[in-house]
């Protein structure tokens, strides 16, 4: 069997073992199902949810919030990163403010965004954006600054204009950095959306979990967390695909073959 196959099998065995121990523990009365509901009841709960339209609406809303905050965050962060990357003066001026803003635990902004933008979509996207923006910004900034000087000199010698340099040299160079941080960004976007929903909303996966928690329904909370994990895994796979397609020009890392 291939190494990959063996790894997958081992992983599967570990998960299966843990679930079995958990399930049997609940059956045997060793684990209190009030705090740790049996896996089988979680499966039933998720199954119940999936048969309701509300659940799919919740997923749709969280997905929309995630995508919007991801795109807006990447857009703003990239623009900011390019601007500051190309203008050392502006970078020096703005740097302390950015550091300060980045030091604020973003979760704390959630309630403020709810006050500003209400319980709807906007406050969720706003929180997501503040999280994604910095990841995108720092990576773009770095990408623009670390453009290979020889490549840059060569492009200049081929008489590239400023806009050509931006389009053909700076942006692609930054793209590799942005892409390598894409997975973190997606995680941030999901986190922003779910936390904001949790803090106050009328729909979404965060809302679902908050509701279950409100009635001390551990089954609901666990089921919600599982759904959320599956959600992130799917998004991650999509990002992985996008990354592979966009970085075809890059040599494969030595340890992969």
């Amino acid at each position, binding site marked *: 069997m291939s190494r990959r196959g063996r790894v997958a099998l081992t992983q599967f065995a570990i998960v299966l073992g843990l679930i079995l121990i958990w399930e049997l523990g609940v059956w045997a009365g060793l684990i209190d199902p009030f705090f740790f509901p049996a896996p089988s009841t979680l499966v039933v709960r998720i199954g119940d949810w999936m048969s309701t339209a509300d659940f799919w609406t919740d997923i749709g809303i969280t997905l929309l919030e995630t995508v919007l905050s991801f795109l807006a965050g990447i857009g703003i962060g990239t623009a900011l990163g390019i601007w500051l990357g190309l203008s050392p003066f502006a970078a020096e001026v703005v740097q302390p403010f950015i550091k300060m803003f980045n030091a604020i635990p973003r979760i704390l902004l959630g309630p403020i965004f709810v006050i500003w933008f209400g319980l709807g979509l906007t406050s969720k996207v706003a929180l997501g954006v503040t999280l994604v923006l910095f990841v995108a910004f720092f990576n773009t900034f770095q990408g623009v600054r670390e453009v290979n000087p020889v490549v840059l000199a060569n*492009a200049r*010698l081929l*008489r590239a204009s400023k806009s*050509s340099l931006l389009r053909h040299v700076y942006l692609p160079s930054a793209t590799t950095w942005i892409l390598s941080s894409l997975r973190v960004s997606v995680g941030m976007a999901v986190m922003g959306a779910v936390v904001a929903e949790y803090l106050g909303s009328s729909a979404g996966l965060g809302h679902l979990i908050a509701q279950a928690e409100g009635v001390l329904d551990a089954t609901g909370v666990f089921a919600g967390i599982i759904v959320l994990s599956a959600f992130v895994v799917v998004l991650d796979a999509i990002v992985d695909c996008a990354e592979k397609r966009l970085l075809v*020009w890059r040599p494969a890392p030595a340890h992969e073959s």
Partner: protein
Amino acid sequence: MGRPRLAVDLRDVMIRFGDFTAVKSMNLQVAETEFVAVVGPTGCGKSTILNTVTGLLKPAAGDVRIFGKSLTGLNGQSGYMLQQEGLLPWKTAHDNVGLGLVFQGSSIAKAREQARPWLAKVGLKGFEERYPHQLSGGQRKRVAMAQTLIMEPKIVLMDEPFSALDVHTRRLMHRILLDLWQADRRSLVFITHDLDEAITLADRVVVMSAGPASRMVADVRIALPRPRDVSALQTTDEFVALYREIWSLLGAEVEKSYVTQG
């Protein structure tokens, strides 16, 4: 007059960086279809001269004339091939070759169309879709060469372009370069520290003194017949005689550069 025009004409050019005099007095004349190699010990300001011809550096004294006109701003008639890798890693071979055309406003499809025959000229037919990391060092150099030459510059400047290659690949590059130059002769200034390379390629070899404050020590005409056979040439008596003659001048300068650099 009957003599070809001067493409590059440096007269008593002095280059300074602050208080540091890199080049004290340089006189270099390159005719329109002439291949001139500049040799000198490391740190003698060879690259500085190319940067002056491109217009990236302004001389502190002296005159830079391009086709008879004093150079102001950047030289619009020169193409510059750097020593180090300058290809865009995210563009395929033919997109890299056509890069200068795209910078001049040509569409990407059109630039590709024009790049194709140039890739064939440097022997890379079939490698159009390869990314730089999928090419060998020699192949990347050929792409870079095509990238410079596709712009059809009247003056081609090359700064130790093949110094990082192994001997065999370098010889192949020499053959390709000479073939291209023979087919479409323009003025070419080739910087190198390798005397073999200089004599093999050039019509004239210019020897520079050790830096700082370097100057021209000698200007030797290489009367070897063209077209030249790159591999057979270096064992001929004429070649060896020229090598001895120039090395007697260059060797002394190299010794001096050892002393000043410790």
